[in-house]
């Protein structure tokens, strides 16, 4: 019986993949195998969660060399007789997915946000047309590579029955040299974890308004996020605060959206919020149709009031 192989460079994501694999294995009895690459701690974590784990220890193999990583995973998949490979759809995983799929001649889907096991056949749910629609798709080739979005599944918990085995792979000399790894400039805010988000759009005309917006978020116990142009064009914030298709997909309890017109590449990142408030000077802004509560107002005028009344609310 062909196995399911899981791999992520990040241990938390690997544990999420373990749960995703269990959903696929249901009704199929596919065995689940995990692989770790140059990461003993991850191998032990996976084994502690019940996974039959294969660890690759090879100093020649660098995570930065996607070609070598795809070659290693091809060999690991062959060793354990796996037809389906689950990867994490973080940046490394997504880059690897396309290359591995080409190497093993597999159909591939990335950014998969949920899986449906329909009597043993696996359906993948993902955003298409920039997030305007949600497609349910199936890979029709025998070999499959599926990259699953972070947090789409809960991480697997402790379970008996795991094991650690070694897996040998042959790697060609790398043509990519890692010169330096450095910490990222910018802050380490996690907008996906925030229960309340105050989101800055291009309708916030001046950077002078940002201290007030930061204060509103602080008063509410939330975080500040932004639409993509505010980070990439205006450079008011780092990319870690971008909401949307190529940023973060957020599901806060409350999203207060300030001056966002509401293009679909943005709304896909916030439409799962429980309650959405749109404050916008343009009553025709598409964002208003996506909101539960709409306040049509000049942001410059309402921000001071929002600062004082949220401060009041804190007491």
């Amino acid at each position, binding site marked *: 019986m062909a196995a399911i192989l899981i791999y992520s460079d990040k241990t938390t994501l690997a544990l999420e993949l373990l749960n995703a694999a269990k959903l696929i294995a249901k009704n199929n009895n596919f065995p689940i195998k995990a692989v770790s690459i140059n990461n003993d701690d991850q191998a032990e974590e996976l084994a502690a969660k019940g996974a039959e784990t294969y660890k690759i220890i090879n100093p020649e193999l660098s995570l930065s060399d*996607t*070609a070598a990583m795809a070659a290693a995973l091809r060999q690991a998949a062959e060793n354990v007789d796996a037809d389906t490979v689950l990867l994490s759809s*973080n*940046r*490394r995983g*997504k*880059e*690897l*997915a*396309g*290359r591995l*799929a*080409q190497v093993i001649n597999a*159909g*591939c889907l990335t*950014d998969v946000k949920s899986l449906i096991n329909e009597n043993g056949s696996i359906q993948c749910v993902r*955003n298409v*047309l*920039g997030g*305007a*629609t*949600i*497609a*349910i*798709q*199936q*890979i*029709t080739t025998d070999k499959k590579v599926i990259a699953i979005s972070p947090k789409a599944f809960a991480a697997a918990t402790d379970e008996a029955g795991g094991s650690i085995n070694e897996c040998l792979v042959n790697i060609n000399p790398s*043509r990519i*040299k*890692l*010169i*330096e*790894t*450095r*910490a*990222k400039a910018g802050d380490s805010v996690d907008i996906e974890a925030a*229960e309340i988000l105050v989101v800055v759009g291009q309708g916030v005309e001046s950077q002078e308004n940002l201290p007030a917006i930061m204060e509103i978020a602080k008063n*509410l116990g939330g975080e500040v996020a932004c639409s993509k142009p505010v*980070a*990439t064009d205006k450079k008011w914030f780092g990319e870690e605060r971008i909401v949307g298709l*190529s940023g973060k997909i957020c599901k806060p309890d409350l999203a207060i959206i300030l001056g966002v017109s509401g*293009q*679909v*590449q943005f709304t896909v990142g916030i*439409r799962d919020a429980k*309650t959405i408030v749109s404050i916008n000077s343009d009553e025709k802004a598409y964002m*208003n*149709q*996506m*909101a*539960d*509560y*709409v*306040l049509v107002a000049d942001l410059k005028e309402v921000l001071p*009031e929002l600062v004082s*009344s*949220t401060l009041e*609310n*804190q007491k």
Partner: protein
Amino acid sequence: MNIVVAMKQIPDLQQIRIRNRKPILDDVALTFGNIDKNALEAGVQLKEATGNNLIVVSVGAEALEDTIKEALAAGADEAYLVLNDEIADMESANSARLIAGAIKKIDDVGIVIFGEGSGDNYSGQVGSRVAEIMGLPQVGYAKSININGNSATVTRSLEDCEEVLEAEMPIVVSVMADINEPRIPSVSQILKAGRKPKEVLELDVTGDSMLATISNLAPDMQRKQIEIETIEKLLKILGNEGLLRR
């Protein structure tokens, strides 16, 4: 050396309307995705820094012959196109095969640049697949690219760190949106674009299908859309719903 930028023609996402949860794509104008425009700008900047030739490669429906002028106006010197009206929504594997096929017709390729993902599907597979087909090293999610002689230094941005990588060319690179701000072509550049060389390649466009789409619908979400007049009222409502005071 030739600098190659691969771009995908997509429907203008802002013109897509939804009816009965289905996307209406008729009469929607075709354009290039935003991140593809960043890829092109990265190519133009490398061309300016090194004095090399910049070729744009694209696969798409026949309107591409017109759409490609956007890229020629914005700084590409010539275009290699594969036209395909048969398959409206081409799968990544097939696009990659055709793009690689087109690139193979170009001599002395130094660097092939993609956007990190297309504007519509954002699947990010094509660059990686092309790198594998051509047997080239790759670096994804670049925020800067420098060419020194025969080697490229690329800084890539991951979720939690940045990596500086060096490779002998040729190499495949995908770029992020914040690598640059694409320039707006001048009127004279737009006028000249139509006269730049375009080569339409005859490649077999039919590829094996690897995917099936079961459904593709807009999410069903009804929001209340209640208009509120004042901040005071708004906070009162949010308070009553238990959304404040945490």
